[in-house]
């Protein structure tokens, strides 16, 4: 059946169209330009993403009622709208971080892969159909495998790319098997039509296919026991890419997780709540305990990002079957706060690593004397990660734990708070290196630590964002609430 052309449908996928156009322009210019002009590709990408962000925010707002577009392939609602903006922002910031990276900055391929991956994430957030969902997940993942292994002369980066590919391919195959079972049981691929058919299914069949699907999603959000790739990949991948992986890619995973659980599996709600609660507890605890032992900052951030996936899962558990409550809204808010905070943390690590060439904690000794501004950014980012007021991470944690209490998951909130305390310890340990310790060789502290313009711009934007989220949080939370409401 051919659906006649409708211009409002095109408006709904405007961000995706702009991303494709931008990727095409960057790829063509990369081939056409002389090598010395290619450093402008980064600025071109940033400006393009900024334009796409503004156009999306103003022109392609969804209609008040959610719509299924293109034969049910995409769902146009406030959740996909909010996540699209988040991904475009995350990609722009990542571009700023990569621009002065000597191995990434002048390669047009880097920006194209980043843009294509962002396109996939946009589609993940709005997919309304199993087939679209799988295609979107692969469109996101395949460029990310290449990006993680982008520095082919560096063994660690190659290892990271390959490990990510193997893990990704395996979990994606398991997830695809789950999709095939869902289709086999119901005869439907549309998420919103699935729910009605799945309700009549025997519980073991329903839970079995749900488990298989969850494997793929858990890999994307790096939840235990599918987290093994995260530390090695984050350590080996170029730092801007690791930042992108741990924020935008994770947010996309959660967008999909929320939509699929609520749209296709309302029949099994109590069962998957228990399952996700278990996953949350294990993820938080394992992530935090392993982070304690790390001496490499990127590995530390990897385990911290696993722990944060656990906190966010608490918000997913705390959903109310009857309808809208704090749960999903707190997840969206947490993801926004976490994106800003973790991008700032990885940005600071990238800035520092570019000059010093090391990501070990020992190298961070005396940073506050070497570069007070960068030390301040690290302070803001790590205090926000640990959940300290007045930063975004604090409010995000409050909402998530409040959602758990509201939905009568009090023990889960208690475990979450206990885990936050463990987290506080290792975040403060790193800050101790930055602020209290001195280098053994004091001359080392005299070396200048230049922060180039793109880094400065990105870090300032992120710090302002973190503080805004932590102080004037009400409008942001209202947006999260609107976005989450369209899930139901």
């Amino acid at each position: 059946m051919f659906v006649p052309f409708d211009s409002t449908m095109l408006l709904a996928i405007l961000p995706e169209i702009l991303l494709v156009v931008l990727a095409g322009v960057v790829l063509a210019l990369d081939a056409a330009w002389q090598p010395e002009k290619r450093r402008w590709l980064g600025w071109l990408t940033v400006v393009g993403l900024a334009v796409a962000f503004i156009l999306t925010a103003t022109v392609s707002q969804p209609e008040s009622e959610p719509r299924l577009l293109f034969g049910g392939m995409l769902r146009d609602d406030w959740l996909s709208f909010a996540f699209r903006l988040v991904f475009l922002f995350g990609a722009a910031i990542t571009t700023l971080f990569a621009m002065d990276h000597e191995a990434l900055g002048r390669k047009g391929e880097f920006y194209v892969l980043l843009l294509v991956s962002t396109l996939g994430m946009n589609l993940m957030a709005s997919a309304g159909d199993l087939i679209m969902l799988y295609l979107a997940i692969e469109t996101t993942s395949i460029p990310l495998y290449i990006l993680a292994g982008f520095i082919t002369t560096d063994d660690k980066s190659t290892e990271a790319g390959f490990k990510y590919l193997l893990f990704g391919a395996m979990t994606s195959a398991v997830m695809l098997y789950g999709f095939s079972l869902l289709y086999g049981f119901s005869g439907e691929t549309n998420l919103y039509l699935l729910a009605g058919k799945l309700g009549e299914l025997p519980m073991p069949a329903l839970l079995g296919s749900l488990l298989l699907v969850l494997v793929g999603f858990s890999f994307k959000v790096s939840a235990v026991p599918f987290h093994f790739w995260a530390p090695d990949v984050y350590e080996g991948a170029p730092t801007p890419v690791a930042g992108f992986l741990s924020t935008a890619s994770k947010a996309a995973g959660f967008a999909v997780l929320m939509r699929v659980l609520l749209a296709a599996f309302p029949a099994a709600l109590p069962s998957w709540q228990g399952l996700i609660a278990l996953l949350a507890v294990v993820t938080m605890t394992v992530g935090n305990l392993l982070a304690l032992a790390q001496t490499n900052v990127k590995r530390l951030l990897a385990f911290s990002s696993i722990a944060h996936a656990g906190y966010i899962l608490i918000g997913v558990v705390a959903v109310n079957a009857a309808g809208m409550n704090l749960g999903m809204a707190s997840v969206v808010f947490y993801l926004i706060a976490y994106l800003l905070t973790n991008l700032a943390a990885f940005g600071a690590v990238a800035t520092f690593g570019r000059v010093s060439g090391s990501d070990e904690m020992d190298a961070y000794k005396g940073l506050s004397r070497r570069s007070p501004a960068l030390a301040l950014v690290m302070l803001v980012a790590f205090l926000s990660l640990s959940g300290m007021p007045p930063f975004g991470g604090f409010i995000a944690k409050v909402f998530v734990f409040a959602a758990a209490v509201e939905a009568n998951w009090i023990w889960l909130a208690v475990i979450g708070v206990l885990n936050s305390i463990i987290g506080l310890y290792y975040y403060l340990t790193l800050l101790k290196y930055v602020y209290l310790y001195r280098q053994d060789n004091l001359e080392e502290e005299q070396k200048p630590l230049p922060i180039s313009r793109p880094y400065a711009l990105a870090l300032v934007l992120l710090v302002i964002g973190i503080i805004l989220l932590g102080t004037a949080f009400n409008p942001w939370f209202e947006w999260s609430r609107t976005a989450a409401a369209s899930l139901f």
Partner: protein
Amino acid sequence: MINFSLQEANPMLAPEYIPLAILFILATALGFLVVIIGNLFGPRRPSIRKAMPYESGMRPIGVGTRRTPVRFYLTAMLFILFDVEVIFFLPWAVVFRELGLSGLIEMGLFLLILLIGFIYAWKKGALEWE
């Protein structure tokens, strides 16, 4: 549309799934059975010649991990690029009239995106053999 009408009393015994379950059990059992029987009754007379890596029955020449020129990979990728293009073209040509102008525009956009990739590959020297 496939209709799975499930029994109300004990849905796990839905008749549609019984052949599937039997197949699953048989396949698993057969896999184990073949390996176990082979291990129990098969004669084992190891020799150096048998332990050698198999290379079409010949004595292996050189190392197993030889390098293959990356050019083959590029050529294969370009082949797939144009192959997929043709695959999309055929069904499009069949319903060309029904699709009308919008179909033409869509195919034009598809070609444009492909063309950018082609120009990129060309400029980067993917088409040069040496």
